[in-house]
């Protein structure tokens, strides 16, 4: 097996097991111990004005332990893995436990949680984890060359990331007599998972600032990203968007390409709008799916079971979909949020499910979704449009009203006028004021679905955030002003 140059940059399964075993040995009191070891590595390269402007290679780790002694729980965390630091880590947690709740109490067996199955997700790629600084720099060279030959200016970013997580949850026996011996390795008891994430995006602009094109893609596997195709697409869009004309703002029929549509539905596909608890408060707290308050029962009613979108829209998430994998959690299951326009599920935390629904497991929300596509192509949608706009990308989308999800933002990197079934002009960018809920109730046609650019922002964050979104044709999309910036 060829050793990858990037190996050793993150904490692998063997190293995680060794750290966990040390911690267990240092536990001096009986009870439960939970060890969580997280690490990440990231290689990145950025270019602007056809030259590489920054390159970096970053990594970090955290070791967190939780001691549960007689029902009292305390945590401690470090980023050091030497013997003394780990020993101190255990000591700090155990001291905190003792302070919380002195006294010996018998564990309450009824509180044991059932073991929930883990979904088998696909989020690891050797192509991503094995990419080196050399890989990135040579590829950037090729991506830039095309723009340079066309006398355009390119800027872009590519990133490869690895994240790991190891969790050990076990009962330990202790007698306060110092480190104990482990009779067998804990390798089988350590739950370990690792994931990769890659992204590449590129903007090509005209040197005079009269045209701009963009393309991007993110995925867990670098091999799923065709960087050369992205460069070509960004260049083509740039050349097609040169010298735009100004048109009057107003309501237009628009064809949103998948990346633009994804940007529009982002405000909907977040934890806050999809939260069931917020939709079931007695007073409206701004949830888009709150229906009414029920004074006698002192509860709120949500729109669960009611039609909220066009019947052609189905929004779901399946963690075992080959392109929609997220970091697995016990009990994570496929969920259909909106089926044929009817609100079928809302996000419930385990806590809410236990208190309100008497269920052990809620419906967790994961930053990944799929909106089912149709059979139309973008070309056929253009051909069927008498007058409208083709939107390549939206930018700076911000929510102005939590209840209606009314959003504002700008078009960017390509906006074209469609007349009599043909693209006739590049158009100046415009500001829009529209709600994704309104747009998805004004659907004229749905195109084919495809994976979009939806990268993870925080290296220490939640791993991967894929989405599959179709292009969509919407009537009466509201633009409020034309802007000069290109």
């Amino acid at each position, binding site marked *: 097996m060829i050793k990858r140059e990037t190996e050793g940059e993150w904490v692998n399964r063997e190293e995680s097991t060794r750290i966990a075993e040390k911690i267990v040995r240092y536990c001096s009191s009986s009870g439960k111990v939970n060890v969580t070891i997280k690490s990440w590595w990231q290689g990145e390269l950025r270019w602007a004005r056809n030259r590489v402007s920054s390159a970096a*290679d970053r990594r970090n780790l955290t070791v967190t332990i939780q001691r549960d002694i007689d029902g009292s729980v305390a945590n401690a965390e470090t980023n050091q893995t030497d013997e003394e630091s780990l020993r101190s880590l255990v000591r700090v947690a155990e001291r905190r436990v003792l*302070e919380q709740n002195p006294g010996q109490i018998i564990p309450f067996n009824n*509180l044991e949680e059932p073991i929930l199955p883990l979904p088998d997700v696909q989020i690891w790629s050797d192509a991503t984890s094995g990419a080196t600084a050399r890989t990135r*720099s040579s590829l950037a060279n090729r991506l830039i060359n095309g723009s340079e030959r066309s006398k355009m200016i390119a800027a872009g970013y590519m990133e490869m990331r690895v994240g790991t997580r190891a969790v050990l949850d076990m009962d330990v026996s202790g007698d306060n007599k110092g480190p104990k011996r482990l009779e067998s390795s804990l390798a089988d008891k350590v739950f370990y998972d690792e994931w990769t994430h890659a992204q590449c995006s590129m903007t090509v602009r005209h040197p005079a600032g009269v045209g701009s094109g963009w393309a991007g893609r993110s995925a867990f596997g670098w091999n799923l990203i065709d960087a050369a195709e992205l460069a070509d697409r960004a260049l083509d869009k740039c050349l097609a968007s040169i010298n735009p004309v100004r048109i009057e703002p107003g309501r237009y029929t628009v064809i949103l390409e998948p990346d633009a549509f994804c940007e529009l539905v982002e405000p909907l596909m977040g934890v806050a709008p999809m939260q069931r608890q917020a939709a079931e408060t007695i007073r409206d707290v701004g949830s888009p799916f709150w229906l009414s308050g029920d004074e006698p029962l*002192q509860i709120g009613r949500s729109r*669960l079971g009611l039609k909220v979108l066009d019947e052609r829209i189905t929004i779901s998430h399946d963690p075992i979909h080959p392109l929609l994998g997220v970091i697995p959690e016990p009990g994570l299951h496929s969920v259909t949020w909106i089926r044929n326009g009817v609100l079928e599920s809302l996000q419930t935390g385990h806590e809410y499910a236990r*208190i309100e629904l008497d269920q*052990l497991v809620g419906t967790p929300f994961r930053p990944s979704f799929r909106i089912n596509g149709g059979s139309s192509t973008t070309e056929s949608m253009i051909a069927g449009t008498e007058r409208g706009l083709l939107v390549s990308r939206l930018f700076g989308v911000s929510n102005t009203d939590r209840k209606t999800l009314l959003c504002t933002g700008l078009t960017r990197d390509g906006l074209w006028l469609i007349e009599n079934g043909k693209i006739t002009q590049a158009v100046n960018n415009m500001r829009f004021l529209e709600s994704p809920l309104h747009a998805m109730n004004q659907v004229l046609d749905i195109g084919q679905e495809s994976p979009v650019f939806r990268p993870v922002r925080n290296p220490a964050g939640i791993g991967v955030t894929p989405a599959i979104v179709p292009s969509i044709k919407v009537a009466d999309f509201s633009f409020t002003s034309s802007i000069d910036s290109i």
Partner: protein
Amino acid sequence: MIEFKSCLRALRSSAKGLYGILPLVIVVISSEIGAQTVFSDPKPLSNFDVYLFPDQCATAVDRVIREIRTQDRTIWDTMPSGQIREVRVWPEKVARTAASCSDRWDPLTVAVSEFGFLYPLYLTAGKQEAALKYRRRSMEYMQAFGADSTAVLIRRSLDAHARNRPVQIYLIDSLVRAAEELAPETTRNETIGPEWRAEKNWELRRLAIMAGDSSLAMIAAQRAEKDWLSIKRTADNSQWYSSSVGAALLNNAFVHHKSRIEALKVSVTGYMDLVRKQERKVVQGQGASRNEAIGTQLPPIEAKYWFPEKPVNSIPESGKISLVLTLNHVCAQGVRHPSVATCHRVFAQLRRIASRFPSLDIVILSYIEGFFQSQYPVDADKEAELKRAWLMDNRKLPGVFAIEDGASMRLPAPDNRIIDLFWTLPTMNAYTHGLNERRARGHMLLELTLIDRAGQVLWSKSSPRRDDERMLLEIIEVLTEKEVTK
């Protein structure tokens, strides 16, 4: 370095026109950075001569502190966890570093512009005289630029004191006095007025507690309260006003506790008059049921189940002091929920109180919910027994456990929520002072109420904290002493 050289060769041969990348790649793979691993931080430098400016010195001191925090945990974990952050003294290594580094700057000649870095350095180094001289000089200098500049300097000084250990309280008191002398006017950078003064005094109170100066803490708290009470609600400050009233309520018990105890020693009636007067002053007519409950008579506890057995006399029993704890759903069922930590804290408090005052009548109050943990529906007898096992056997709560009769229902699909109308139950409602509505903090109220021999509410608190427990213990102590005296 081999890797670096090979990378360099590869770049030179393949990336024509990409020489802009070279310095950046050097950053990534140069030996200094490359030598770092995920397991180690950069070592702090010890040659202070290389530092030319106070900010470099401050950074060096920070590095020493960080290194000690992350690697030398044995220093910290010898103290109780809650106090580690608050009262620990910088190790000698930190003070030595700060002293060596700050030696070269004379407080009477060094530029005032270095205040932000140099003042904390003097404090860390233990050079209190130098710090005082430098601050006086800087204050005099800043006064020429107006009140807002002085205010900024005061804020920075207080921030530095808040971070420094040990707390040098005599340096801080004069700072707050200087803050009070500033004119109550609105300026560009700082709003100097009652709110500003109250905040600074509240900070002083916190620092005085950390420094163990209780009399100064009391004085500072009274000053803060005076300012809070002078604030009137306006359209501009409504949010701030609410939080300041909340802070004043918190402060109220702290400030007036001593006088209340003195009044209680004389007579219960005098104590209640004082409490009513003080609480009314604080809430300014906003109405707070818990405060209004002080001095009222609560009805006898009516329950369907009693464990271990129903008392012969009704509770509260005339001539005896009673303590009643109402349990919310999470505490009564031991639901795995973040707020269960509060339950454990209150349970521990209850055990401590019971062991100190065995003659106290302690009643734990819950109600039939129709389910237990993940079991629904559950027969009322079984639910009562499960709750008894959880609270009396497992949590070893003292006193008697009363369960009021109740009922629940499940809403039809897709809602599926379980609804219990607990706020309609007379006993639960009375002993949570009418606050136990679903809309009140999501029915998570955990109310502890002290009732005197005449059946009047003397003290009540939701989810009591350690300070509340201390005050409660003093009140019970006075009451029991009065009994002995009789």
